[in-house]
């Protein structure tokens, strides 16, 4: 789950990481009041969960409260990569001498947490990783003992920090690492981490992504969820316990298992079709789950035909067939449907489908070709 900059800022402040004074506004007059309170030039920043807001005009410097109000007026309601800006953060402007990068991630290859730093802050770190990977330094935290101060100092020295900055960077690294662990994050980054013209370190922009699998033990994080970050169908899918990702094609897919669901999309594309979604309905495929999945698929107006690809494992195919038939009784679907059904008791399952007038096949490639044909008609 992605959270907003202002939410991530609140979190890292609890770990004693210095940030500019700031507050959040949803109407321009609030932005003016915040600027009046801060008594300084401010930066008005769009709060959206996509990158590239600066280039899109979603970040503006304001010298006076009146300018802040005008900037907020321009940014609020603006569309950035299809997302409407509903909130701005109004933050005290920082006098920048240098911009650094500090990030914490899970390093899958090393199977532990990595802390990364770079003297090239304020730009897209993935771009730095591509163009000048030697400008990124990395330290692996011990899985049990965590990040040691000496590791943070080594990063700081490699980034060219010295004196008081060396000590401050170590404290900030330790804080960000701690925040990452305690929040069950999958990403925590400060970019830029600014060296001010009076020699202090300030976290000017913060980004955090939280591990969806750990949200069950952070009930309070549910309040941080931005409903606009998910489309309606994705939200419904999540609440039903499905993995659903909306795409822009014409073939609705309903598959059991994530790997098979991805492979189904791949086969559809390979034969010239376009998947409307990724949907893993998981094990079981009982009628109520299939019915719920049908509702999700047919709610998408782009869907012209539906492909069910079920490989029965523990789930028996005759049960799946009964589930599909019951679901269609509950949610009438006028779209053409192709069912591919294999696995335990597949003959019984396909016989049941045939009785109900549903075409089925055992080959995934044939099923894909059939559904592509039907989506074209």
């Amino acid at each position: 789950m992605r959270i907003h900059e202002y939410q991530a800022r609140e979190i890292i402040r609890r770990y004693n990481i210095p940030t500019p004074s700031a507050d959040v506004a949803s109407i321009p007059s609030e932005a003016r009041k915040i600027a009046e309170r801060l008594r300084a030039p401010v930066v008005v920043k769009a709060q959206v969960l996509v990158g590239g807001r600066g280039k899109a005009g979603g970040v503006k410097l304001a010298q006076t409260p009146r300018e802040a109000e005008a900037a907020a007026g321009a940014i609020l309601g603006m569309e950035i990569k299809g997302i409407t800006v509903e909130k701005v953060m109004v933050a005290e402007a920082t006098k920048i001498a240098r911009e650094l990068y500090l990030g914490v991630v899970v390093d899958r290859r090393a199977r532990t947490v990595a802390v990364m730093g770079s003297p090239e802050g304020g730009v897209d770190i993935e771009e730095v990783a591509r163009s000048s990977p030697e400008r990124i330094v990395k330290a692996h935290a011990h899985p049990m003992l965590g990040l040691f101060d000496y590791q943070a100092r080594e990063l700081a020295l490699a980034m060219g920090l010295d004196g008081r900055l060396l000590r401050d960077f170590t404290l900030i690294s330790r804080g960000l690492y701690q925040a990452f662990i305690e929040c069950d994050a999958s990403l925590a980054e400060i970019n830029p981490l600014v060296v001010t013209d009076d020699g202090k370190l300030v976290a000017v922009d913060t980004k955090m992504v939280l591990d969806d699998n750990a949200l069950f033990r952070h009930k309070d994080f549910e309040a941080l969820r931005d409903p606009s970050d998910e489309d309606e169908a994705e939200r419904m899918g999540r609440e039903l316990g499905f993995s659903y990702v909306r795409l822009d094609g014409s073939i609705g897919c309903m598959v059991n298992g994530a790997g098979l669901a991805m492979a189904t999309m791949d086969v559809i594309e390979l034969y010239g079709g376009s998947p409307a979604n990724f949907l893993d309905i998981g094990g079981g495929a009982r009628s109520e789950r299939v019915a719920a999945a049908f509702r999700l698929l047919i709610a998408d107006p782009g869907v012209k035909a539906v492909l069910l690809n079920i490989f029965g494992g523990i789930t028996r195919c005759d049960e799946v067939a009964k589930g599909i038939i019951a679901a269609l009784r509950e949610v009438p679907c006028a779209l053409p449907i192709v069912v591919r059904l294999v696995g335990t008791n597949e003959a019984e399952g396909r016989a049941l489908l045939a009785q109900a007038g549903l075409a089925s096949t055992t080959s995934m490639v044939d099923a894909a070709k059939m559904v592509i044909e039907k989506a074209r008609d």
Partner: protein
Amino acid sequence: MLDYGTNVVAGVTPGRKGETALGVPVFNGVAEAVRETAANTSIIYVPAFAAPDAIVEAVDAGISLIVCITEGIPTLEMVRVYSYVRQGGARLIGPNCPGLISPGKCKVGIMPAHIHRPGGIGVISRSGTLTYEVVLELTVRGFGQSTCVGIGGDPIIGSSFVDVLGLFEKDAATGAVVMIGEIGGSDEESAAEFIATSLSKPVFGFIAGQSAPPGKRMGHAGAIISGGSGGAADKVAALTAAGVRMASTPTEIGELVQRWGESEDARSERI
């Protein structure tokens, strides 16, 4: 598993000691079960919040092979647990996997056993049902399997492609290997390096998620293209460069294996 002939000697459910389940005695804890039955393998199905505890309990009880089916364990929990498993000298398969099967011998998992046949192809995969798909393609073409291992779809898993490929290299029963990867992480790239330098057997591959958009998690916690890395094209390129014969659909895996099986070099080492 009982139906398949797997020697299941004990079940563990705290507070249910003395009961039996399908004729198998139930114990309160893993250490006690190991003491009384000499079990050497543990399969874990408990919910995500309890699974890390179950894995550590198995390590401490001296279990040497731990198979964790459970999906949804927090990633940072697995970072700690993985490290503990390694220190304890145990081997962990999963989490978020279907388990493993050596057809005709033993099954420790939840896969449909009837699609498998004993034979010489080793199968390794990050997925569940997609593995069944590929196994069926092999079986209908007359290619049985030595062992099929689902390593799991999470970002941090107990055994990687490289770990299991090393075992297949040493396994006399395995004549060729099928590996099924997917988007996310760089485990397939590591596997490509290993295959190029240390694997003498032919390898066939498929990568799921070639049509997946970046930045979206495709069902598995580990299946996400992030920061321009983890995409299918890079993985296919790395594996192809390492000499792996790559298929563009699961069906094509069966066809590639069949073509190889009909060729001379396979016949010379009859599998």
